[in-house]
């Protein structure tokens, strides 16, 4: 693995791959909603007890539908705003307990890249100033050469682009500027919230490859949020599937996509249009019936049960918790889908399997 010199010069140089970088436990975030006339209308249950880990050098992908709490999850990690309850331990420090000053210092190690590249850059600033801003904010010296180096790293020509303003750049170039800002301070974790979703396919592939190159060269960890399942698989070591503020399934990317255990994951995968890889024939999506339930009033028990083809009485009564069904592969479902055996056998069913 090629490491740039800066990687070694990190203040915390001792971080090793595979160590826990971020440990989030039981994150709960709720927002009050006002009905007409300012009356208290209810509570949006944006996150309801979400726990996950990110290891150093690892990419955790998060997928889910609109309103499943993906962005709230990202914002709870960086404490903007802090979660209602739960803990976020980043490099050994619980961020939820930090005061303002200490929190600002800790955030140096975690940066965000947002969906809309035009919306996240000040339109009156030049690219050079935009990339310099985080360096100046944390009192870095010798900023000029570093800005040029950063622009070079994200594939922009410092002599051409540093003097331009965001409106003179294309969407893909703006997103590169946003990425240069995010990596300026050598963060350990970069949170990408739909970071390539607004880009055209050919530009999107360029930016995805840039993320991949930076991961290898700088040893970055990513929390990669997207609604696009294929995109998330492209970049992730592990994938977490969110549904209505809860994790439905977490597992290694390859295993989770090849053999989804949660009916919701299967439903998402079955909804993707496209070609069948083996036959080259069009794949006709088979979406789940019905609408996603409201986060204002989530169903009792399992929150997917209203759309789930496998739902039984138990699902309405008992809330499923994440259970490890395979190595590193945890599923929150009473009646998970059995993995398709690679070799057909007549061996007895695994013990943990609950026959519906």
């Amino acid at each position, binding site marked *: 693995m090629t490491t740039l010199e800066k990687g070694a010069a990190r203040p915390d140089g001792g971080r090793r791959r595979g160590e826990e970088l971020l440990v989030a436990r039981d994150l709960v975030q709720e927002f009050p909603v006002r009905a007409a006339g300012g009356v208290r209308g209810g509570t949006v249950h944006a996150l309801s007890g979400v726990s996950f880990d990110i290891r150093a050098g690892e990419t955790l992908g998060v997928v889910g*539908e609109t309103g499943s709490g993906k962005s709230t999850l990202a914002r709870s990690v960086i404490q903007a705003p802090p979660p209602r309850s739960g803990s976020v331990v980043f490099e050994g420090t619980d961020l939820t307990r930090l005061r303002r000053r200490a929190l600002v210092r800790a955030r140096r190690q975690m940066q965000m890249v947002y969906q809309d590249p035009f919306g996240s850059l000040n339109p009156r600033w030049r690219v050079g100033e935009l990339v310099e801003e985080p360096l100046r904010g944390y009192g870095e010296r010798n900023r000029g050469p570093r800005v040029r180096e950063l622009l070079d790293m994200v594939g922009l020509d410092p002599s051409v682009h540093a003097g331009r303003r965001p409106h003179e750049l294309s969407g893909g170039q703006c997103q590169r500027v946003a990425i240069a800002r995010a990596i300026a301070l050598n963060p350990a974790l970069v949170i990408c919230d739909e970071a390539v979703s607004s880009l055209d*396919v050919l530009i999107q592939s360029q930016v995805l490859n840039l993320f*991949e190159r930076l991961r290898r060269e700088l040893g970055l960890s990513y929390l990669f949020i997207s*609604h696009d399942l294929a995109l998330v698989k492209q970049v992730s070591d592990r994938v977490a599937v969110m549904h209505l503020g809860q994790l439905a399934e977490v597992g290694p990317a390859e295993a989770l996509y090849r053999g989804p255990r949660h009916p919701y994951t299967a*439903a998402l995968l079955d909804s993707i249009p*496209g070609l069948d890889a083996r036959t080259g024939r069009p794949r006709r999506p088979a979406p789940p019936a019905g*609408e*996603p339930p409201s986060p204002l009033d989530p169903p009792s028990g399992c929150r997917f049960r209203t759309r789930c083809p496998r739902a039984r009485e138990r699902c309405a009564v008992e809330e499923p918790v994440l259970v490890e069904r395979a190595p590193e592969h945890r599923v929150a479902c009473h009646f998970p889908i059995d993995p398709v055996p690679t070799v057909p056998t007549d061996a007895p069913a695994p013990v943990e399997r609950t026959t519906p």
Partner: protein
Amino acid sequence: MSELASESSNTAPAQRRPSASEGVRCELASEPVAEREDVLATATAAAPPPRRDPDRTEPLLVVDDLRIRFVGRGRTVHAVNGLSYSLAPGRTLAIIGESGSGKSVAARALMGLLPPTARVSGSARFDGTEMVGLSEREARRHRGADIAMVFQDPARSLNPTMRIGAQIAEAVRAHSDLPKAAAHRRAVELLSLVHLPAPQRRFHEYPHQLSGGMRQRVMIAIALAGEPRLLVADEATTALDVTTQAQIMELLLELQQRLGTAIVLISHDLGLAASYADDVVVMYAGRVVERARTADLFAHVRMPYTGALLGAIPRLEREPHSLLPVVPGQPPDLSALPRGCPFRPRCSSATDRCAEDPPLQEHEPGHWWACWHPLPDARPDAPAKEGV
């Protein structure tokens, strides 16, 4: 899971649609559903005028060499540079391209929805009527009644201060002389046609009370109010979740099956085209670069741009952390198009010859492409081809 969804996933596109369910009363059918098997995929602009043949359906829409420029502020933006296609009743045509490829502008030209700075030339004949150059008054007669459009963002297309029922009834009354009470009943019918749960109750709700998918269903109900024969879906499912997208597409196909509506599906998503369209037109910088039946196109892509698009899509089959094949550069500036093939500056197989305009020709039956150096044919029994 809906009955439509339970269909086998790997049937060929030509046969994959379910037949219209028996006993379903077809409220809107103004004409019989076309005989699908014999419908021509794409009639060519150069082909002889279609004969009245009972086995063949005449194209509903024939677009021929459509060109659209925007003139202003001292520069001319060439948004569409020679678009030709045709569409038969009951068929779905996907127009695929990136932002700025001219796909939406071309569709808006059909509806007479372009700003006054647009200069349109060429021809777009809808059922024999020339749509290019119609006066606003004449265009209004066709808009909604013959051709209806569903846009990307249902939240912005609906009036937030009006109940959805009133908005549908308004559209119904604009295209008929039904009295208020009948228009109301018709609106409820339309809501149940697009499978909005509890249509009687929803009739009195406001757009903000509905989810994105439900709003798009309302938009489709409004589009169907004038019983159009052509429905243009301009990125109609792009803002929706995959699950909702699949539901809306199922709805569109079901309605097409029942009403015989032709659909133009404008999208950037090749996967969507692969799953739902009969024919595909790929646009780049305002031109058609490849055009074929869906199955033919995806079985053997010939234009390098289409190949690049297919390669750049993250796919479930790829290993995590694999690098995507990358096409350098950006789409050309439409006010300063390069000479010759517009994809030339980014194309890996470009040569000096590409400075000459490659014509869009039918190189194989039904398969058109505009390229001097097409990709090799992937089929095992492929005939020898020109130099690559």
